[in-house]
Structures are given as structure tokens and as C-alpha cells.
């Protein structure tokens, strides 16, 4: 039983890293629907690097770096060129799908390195994720930079008029978001399931994206949501552990999405908005032009 929980929490961590990055992105007003693509790239880069050099650390570094660079690429299209953020994000995902399959196929198979040591069966990435949640919360709600980030996502014109460099803030956030997505991918290929296969994620990135909306852009709710989704996902792999024969894994796998959709419906109702205030960053997905 503990094994299942520990495994679920490790799965949660992968959602958590990626979604936390996306949350920072979105708080600054940039939507990156290509999250899955960033994770695929980050995971693949980490896997290849680790296998070639024999070092987990270098693998993680490669994942972080590539994720950050791709985040900046998305920023270039959506912030500098003011392109459509959804198109740019989808483009990243499609590119990653093809390119990682092409570049990674010679490496198909297990990593062949030792497992990353665990604490009482629990992956060390879970406590790291919790710490990152706390840090993100502090950053967003207790620092001047966080106020600037949130303002850039709510009303960039107001932020600019207050002397906040909106463009730089958004670039910072897409870079951070990209790095966290890369870290998430690397955690998948180096620790959670150290076997490379084409399109190894099969939707983890999209679950993470849904998770951000589920969390109403709050890191703590995100942590709870990630844990919940992690358990759901793990159950989808072995549903016979809990409810033998009730539902197939494919049905279980839709549960995170099935939960997210009604929540999205509820938080967009006028009732919710008047009662709890606007959860969604006002300027999310909208390019900002100065002046």
C-alpha cells in the first residue's frame, strides 16, 4: 500500500513541476499549451545526456537548460512577435513530438544507470516539489517581483505605467516555466520511468496544463490537485489494486480531465466570480503592446 502511495506521489511530482512552471507563466499572462512538448524535449535531452555521460546530474542540467531555452522560444513568438500563444504552444508540441521521436529513437530502451536513491521508498523529488510550491507561493504573494508578475498577468498596461518592465517580467516567467517543464520531463525519464520510448509522456503535459486551471492559479491548491491527479494516474496503470475489474485503465485515465472540466465550468460562472473574485489572470493569453 505504501508502495502505491509513494509511487503516486512521485507521479504527482511530475505533474507538480510542470504545472508549477505553467502557473508562473500564466500568472504573468503567458499561456503555454505546448507544456507537453517542453516536457518531451526536456525528458529526452536529460535521458540522452545521462546515458552518454553516465551522470544523472548532467542529465537534469540538460533537461533544465533545454526547457528554459524552449520557454524563451515560446516567449519570442508570443511576447516579442505578439503571435497567437495557442498556435505557438501547439507548434512547440508538434515539433517536439516529431523531433524527439527522430532524435531519441536510437536510445530506445532502459537508461542503464543506477536508480536515484529514495527516502523510505519515496522519491526525493516529492519533498523538492513541496519546497518549490512554498517558494513559488512566497515569490508570487510575498515579494515585489511576485506583485509585478501578477500585475503583468492582470493588467500589463497598469504594470507598465507603474514602471514595471512587462516584457522582461514575462520573459523571466516563460524561462522559469520552461525550466520547470524540463525538470519535470527529466524526472520522468531519469527517475519515475527510466526507459526511453517515443512519445513516452502520452498526455502528462496536458494533465499538468489542466491542473493549472484546476488550481485556480494557487500553488497550494496546485499541490493538492497534483497529489490527487497523481493517485488517479497511478490507479489508471493498475486499477485492479483498488477496484479490481471495475474500470479499465483508459477510463481511469480520463478522470483528471473529467474532474477539471466541471471545475472550469464552475469557476467561469458569474456566481463564482462575484462570490470569490476573478481567479483567472485577466490578461492571460493576450499579447501586450506598449503605449
Amino acid at each position, binding site marked *: 500500500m505504501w508502495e502505491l502511495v509513494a509511487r503516486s506521489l512521485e507521479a504527482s511530482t511530475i505533474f507538480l513541476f510542470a504545472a508549477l512552471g505553467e502557473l508562473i507563466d500564466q500568472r504573468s499572462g503567458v499561456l503555454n499549451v505546448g507544456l507537453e512538448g517542453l516536457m518531451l524535449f526536456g525528458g529526452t535531452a536529460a535521458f540522452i545526456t545521462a546515458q552518454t555521460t553516465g551522470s544523472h546530474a548532467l542529465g537534469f542540467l540538460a533537461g533544465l537548460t533545454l526547457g528554459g531555452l524552449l520557454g524563451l522560444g515560446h516567449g519570442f513568438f508570443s511576447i516579442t512577435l505578439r503571435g497567437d500563444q495557442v498556435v505557438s504552444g501547439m507548434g512547440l508540441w508538434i515539433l517536439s513530438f516529431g523531433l524527439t521521436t527522430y532524435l531519441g529513437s536510437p536510445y530506445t530502451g532502459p537508461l542503464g544507470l543506477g536508480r536515484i536513491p529514495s527516502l523510505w521508498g519515496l522519491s526525493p523529488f516529492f519533498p523538492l516539489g513541496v519546497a518549490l510550491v512554498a517558494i513559488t507561493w512566497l515569490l508570487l504573494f*510575498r*515579494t*515585489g*517581483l*511576485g*506583485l*509585478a508578475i*501578477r*500585475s503583468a498577468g*492582470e*493588467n500589463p*498596461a*497598469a*504594470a*507598465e*505605467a*507603474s*514602471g*514595471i*518592465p512587462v516584457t522582461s517580467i514575462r520573459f523571466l516567467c516563460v524561462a522559469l516555466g520552461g525550466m520547470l517543464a524540463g525538470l519535470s520531463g527529466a524526472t520522468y525519464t531519469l527517475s519515475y520511468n527510466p526507459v526511453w520510448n517515443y512519445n513516452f509522456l502520452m498526455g502528462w503535459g496536458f494533465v499538468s496544463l489542466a491542473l493549472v486551471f484546476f488550481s485556480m492559479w494557487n500553488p497550494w491548491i496546485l499541490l493538492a490537485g497534483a497529489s490527487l491527479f497523481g493517485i488517479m494516474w497511478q490507479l489508471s496503470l493498475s486499477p485492479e489494486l483498488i477496484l479490481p475489474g471495475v474500470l479499465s485503465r483508459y477510463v481511469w485515465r480520463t478522470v483528471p480531465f473529467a474532474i477539471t472540466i466541471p471545475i472550469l465550468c464552475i469557476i467561469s460562472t*458569474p*456566481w463564482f*466570480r*462575484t462570490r470569490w*473574485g*476573478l481567479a483567472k489572470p*485577466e490578461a492571460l493569453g493576450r499579447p501586450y503592446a*506598449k*503605449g
Partner: protein
Amino acid sequence: MSPPDLAPTEPILAARGITKRFPGVLALDHVDLEIQAGEIHAVLGQNGAGKTTLMNILFGLLQPDEGALYLREQRIRFRSPHDALARGIGMVHQTRRLVSAHTVLENIALGHPRTRGFLNLRSTRLEVEALGNRYGFTVPLGARVWQLSEGERQWVEILKALYRGAEILILDEPTAALTPPEVKTLLAGLQTLVRDHGVTVLLVTHKLPIVMAVSHRVTVLRSGRVVARLRTADAAEESLVQHMIGRDIAFRTMNRSAEMGRPLLQVEQLSAFNDKGLLALRGVSFSLREGEVLGVAGVTGNGQEELAQVLAGLRPAASGRVRLDGRDVTRLSPLQRWRMGVGYIPAERIEVASIATFSLVENTALNYHFDPAFIRRGLLDNAGLEQLTQRIVTTYNVKAPSQYARAQHLSGGNLQKLILGRVLSRNPRLLIAHLPTQGLDVEAAAFVRATLVEATAEGAAVLLISEDLDEILSLSDWVAPIYEGRFGAIIPRAEAGAETVGAMMAGVGMKEAGVR
């Protein structure tokens, strides 16, 4: 109030030879502006005169193509608002630049150099409170901005600029969305800031009474050029108007024949919710005859939008009844109402009344696509629509490069003429005109008003919703001041004085009558 030094002293802030071009437009043409320390300097001009562009340059939001800025005779360059703020220049924009989901305190702290690293909102709160006490005004620091009134939001922006250490305060059309009492408070507050605290105020407006009331000196802009630079005490209102519009346009009451036709519209106890689900229109009743104009006067956000939308069929009525020709139309769709002769000119010219990326012809078709006269074998009759558009363009004097120009490339005035023409060419019997002249220059506004008057001569009843009291008083047969979703009264024009109506718009008189 004694004006500051009359002898030309060193200006605290000066713009010299500023030129700014936008694609196809020369927005500013070698503009010189000098502001003395400790004065209220008014920049007067019509819409499109270049006032806002000039202010955005002074605040670092835009860079001039030519010319330079001088602060205390030192040449300066502002690459962004950040630079301007660092030099003690604060700006309150025409549209609020506040994050409405954040608290007042967070908004004030945003971007302040002291918020580097961890936020210490507690000490910020104490400092802002102290500042407010010093200048003699308070705003609820813990409230979220969306909860505040427009007047309070303005004070938040002013307080924010002062907290940033602004010594020069630029206010762009600060009275645009305020009620008359709020305007009074604002102007008195600005005078105190200048007199007692040595703040310099640069006031941008197109409202003459404000210039006359508070400014020491005035610079008049027209079409991107400075046409006059005067001490307010030496300036006569008439001459300022002439400078501003370039020739003599006297504001006069429209002459209308007062023949009223048959009763057309009856509205009984009409109520409606706004988008937030709050009751915004609360039991409005009136009736209109053919050829009559009812002027609904009020500051935006008092239920006018909801009234117009309910009558046009775009918003369901929460309760009450609307009768047209005695027939209950409360639940009819917009299209059914169109067919019965209801014409609607929405306030949002580019968002609701037209589609920005559509051509003139397509925008005209928006009111005709359901008309069998413009459908041939199931397809839209393009040739017919072109002819109709041509007729509208000619009759209503719409200046456009071609019929296939996009609506977004028309100026506000020309687009409004097109919309007006499109609606009127269906000969509506009831015309709902919501802010029909808002943001238009004097000529276009006069044209729109004259056209409305013509429509009444043809027998149309007009519901005119406007913030401009002069417009209401010059066009209406009946005046209904609206405040918080209720009519204060329905007054015949002959008895409606600007003072009474203005007071009711601000909700004075209504509370006495025991209404909320």
C-alpha cells in the same frame, strides 16, 4: 487663489520642438510646452488634437521623433515610464491603470523601488496612511480596486503617484468618468496639493469650465500644433473655444417643431440585471410618442447600458413590461424588434455596433442580411448592398477611402455616421441612441445631433442616452436623470435646468425623496 510668478521663470518641465508621427498621421508638429513649478497648467484641445500623445511622451511611454524634454533646464530622455517616475513625474491616465483584482495597497506598492525583495505591506500601509493624512484624503487601502467608485480609483492613482515621490502630476482627462460632486472634490484636492504642498499639476482636458476654474495657465493644442499659450486670467472662454476648434461654432438649442404624434412606446416598471448579476435597472417607467425625444442623462454605469439593451432585446428583463404600439414586446428577440421598427445605436461603436475587420459594405449588411430585399436565390445581394452603402456614404457624408475599407480604419466620427446611416435607412420608428456623440469631434457630433433631430421630424421617437448634459438639454423634449438604475424624475425640457438635472445625476434629490 494667487497665480504663481507671472514673470517667466525657469520652467520645471519643458518640451521643445516635439514632433511625433504615426503611420499616416502627424500627431504632434513641433510642439513647445513649458510648465512652471507650482502651477496648474491646463492643456486644452479636442479629441485627436494630440494631447494624450504629448503626455505619453512626457511620461516616457512614447519616444518623440524630434525634439527633446528638459527637466529644470537639464535635457532628459525617458526610455520608459520607469525613468519618468524616477525623476518625479507621475501620470494618471485617462483610462484607469490599476489592477482591479488587487487591493488598493498592492496597487500603490506595485513598482515602488521599496518593494524590491520581500513585500512589507504593513510598513507600506503606514506610510501611505501618513501620506494620505498629510494631503488630507483617505482611500480604503484594503479594498479591491473593482469595489471602488471611479472617483476613488482616481484618488488611488493620485496617491500612488505621490507615494512614488511625484512632484509633477500629469492628469489626462481626469474628470471624464466622474459625477459632478466627484469632480468638485477632485479639483479642490488638486488645488490643495498645488497650494500647500508645492506639487505641479499638468491637467489635460477638453472641458473648458475645468480649465477656467482651476488652471493658472493654459496651452491650447489643435491638430498637433500649439495654437495658443495664455494665462487663464487673461483668457476669455469664447476665444479659447475658437482656438480649440479653429472657428466659431456656437452651441445652440436645436429648433424642433413640437408636434407629437401617436403614443408609441410604453415601458412599465422595467428592471434588469447587469453582467455581475446585480440589479442594475430598478423599475423604470416611461412612455414615448412618435417624434418625441426622451433624454436619459446620467454618468455611465447607472443602468443606462442595461436599459438600452433590454429595449433592444439584447438583455432579458428581470421584471416589467415593454409595449410597442400597444403590443407586448418584452420577450421578443432583437430581430423581431428590428422588424417592428426598433433601431439601436450601441455605445460601443467598434465592439458592438460594427465589426472592425469587416468592410463598410459588410458592416452595412449587418442590418440587412435578413431582409428579403437583399437576398437573391438564397444568397446575399452584393450589388444591392453596395448601392445601399454608397447611398449611406453619400447621404451621411462618410469619409472613407472606399466601400471596401475596413471599419477599423475609419475615424470614430465617420464610423458613427455609417452606423447612424445604416440604422436610419431602415426608417426605424423607435431609435435607441446610446452615447451617440461620445468621443466625436465637434463637427461630427453636431452632424449626429442634427441627424437625430431630422429623424424625429420624420416621426421617429428617440431614446437618447448621454452623459453630456448640454446635449441632452438641447435635444430632448423630456429629460430623465438616471441614478443607480432609477429615473429621478421625468422633466419637460422647458423646466429642466442644468443644475437640477446635474444634481439628480449625482443622486442628490433622490435620497431626499426616500429612494434608497
